[in-house]
């Protein structure tokens, strides 16, 4: 239990998707104009991550890894499909995002109105595929670890995009040299926020 909590805190603050790995930067920079839309996108990312990361992990463990198919029959024990993992992961994510979109549209129109436009964007958000690939690379062993890691990464991303949106709302009122306006200052802001987040490094819980 302790190690799971530790993993969660690590993935929110220390291994933050945006500030440590720069994943999901495109939508992070493009959609963070107001706090309200950022919150919507952040929640959608958490939601999709929580669903796709465990599924991708299951697919990887029981179908793709070298020897993973031994549970079907012993003749498949030395099949190694790991080279297909990129293709399968992205297909799972794209299909799942589509499915979630249809499901939410049918059963919860208010939620669909809040998240609807963001859902298609998420299929190509690097953070989602990034989590699937990190899970594969770091060889997390149990489903609960994977779920906690996915939740933590999602929450970290949510925090980051909400924070930058809040800063951007305020920065409208300050004098910035014209060539630096917009994209330039967003980069420098994100850099400074990342330096602040590095303060969490090395914390042991």
């Amino acid at each position: 239990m302790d190690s799971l909590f530790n993993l969660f805190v690590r993935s929110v603050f220390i291994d933050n998707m945006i500030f440590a790995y720069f994943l999901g930067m495109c939508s992070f920079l493009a959609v963070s104009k107001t706090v309200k839309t950022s919150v919507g996108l952040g929640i959608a990312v958490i939601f999709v991550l929580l669903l796709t990361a465990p599924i991708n992990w299951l697919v990887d463990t029981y179908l793709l890894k070298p020897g993973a198919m031994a549970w079907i029959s012993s003749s498949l024990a030395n099949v190694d499909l790991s080279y297909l993992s990129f293709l399968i992961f992205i297909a799972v994510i794209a299909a799942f995002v589509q499915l979630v979109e249809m499901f939410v549209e049918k059963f919860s129109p208010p939620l669909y109105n809040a998240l609807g436009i963001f859902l298609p964007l998420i299929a190509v958000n690097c953070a989602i595929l990034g989590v699937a690939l990190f899970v594969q690379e770091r060889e997390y062993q149990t489903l609960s670890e994977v779920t906690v890691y996915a939740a933590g990464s999602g929450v970290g991303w949510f925090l980051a995009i909400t924070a930058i949106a809040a800063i951007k709302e305020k920065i409208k009122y300050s004098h910035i040299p014209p060539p630096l306006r917009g994209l330039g200052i967003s980069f420098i802001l994100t850099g400074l926020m990342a330096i602040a987040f590095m303060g969490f490094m090395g914390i042991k819980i």
Partner: protein
Amino acid sequence: MSANNKSNQEPLFSAKNTKLLKKPFNLENPITVQVLGICSALAVTVQMKPAIVMALSVTIVTGFSNLLISFLRDTIPARIRIIVQLVVVAALVIIVDQILKAYLYDVSKKLSVFVGLIITNCILMGRLEAFAMGNKPWPSFLDGIGNGIGYGAILVIVAFFRELLGSGKIYGYDVIPKVVFETGYVNNGLMILPPMALITIGVIIWLQRSRNRELVDKS
């Protein structure tokens, strides 16, 4: 789209086509102007070598995915085009990944998940949607290569400064003479840390926009 419209064929490197190749270098740079493909641009720029390998991989994938999608553009149903595009891109990325693992194993370890993340690199989807779906194969191929190079240029510039200032090397070779260190010069360890990649790109954007006033944000 008429396929048999061959009467007005233009030379392979006409002025229009070279423009496609050159424009992404400065005025339509994918990173600093179109805001595409930032995710991977930042994480692989600690040293020159991974940055160059990454730039080449992305250039190859953008070029060929643009070419393939442009060939397929009339047969892809609009509703499932995103999945078709992702599958084409993922197949190309798998090929690049396997080649890197076979011939450049240490670099491929350093790039870790970022080779896989070329799939969701926004440059690809952006160029496929904006260009390859509506243009002929050859211009699309050039557009892809041009955008890959524009992306790579920024990557290499950032990596150059981070490696030079952060560890005193260029492409793994020491360039700062020992004498300088003896007088008290120290490598700036901050440059190796991830946040400085963001700030370096911020400064590059600043410089580029102060030279090209038409790129400045109006708001």
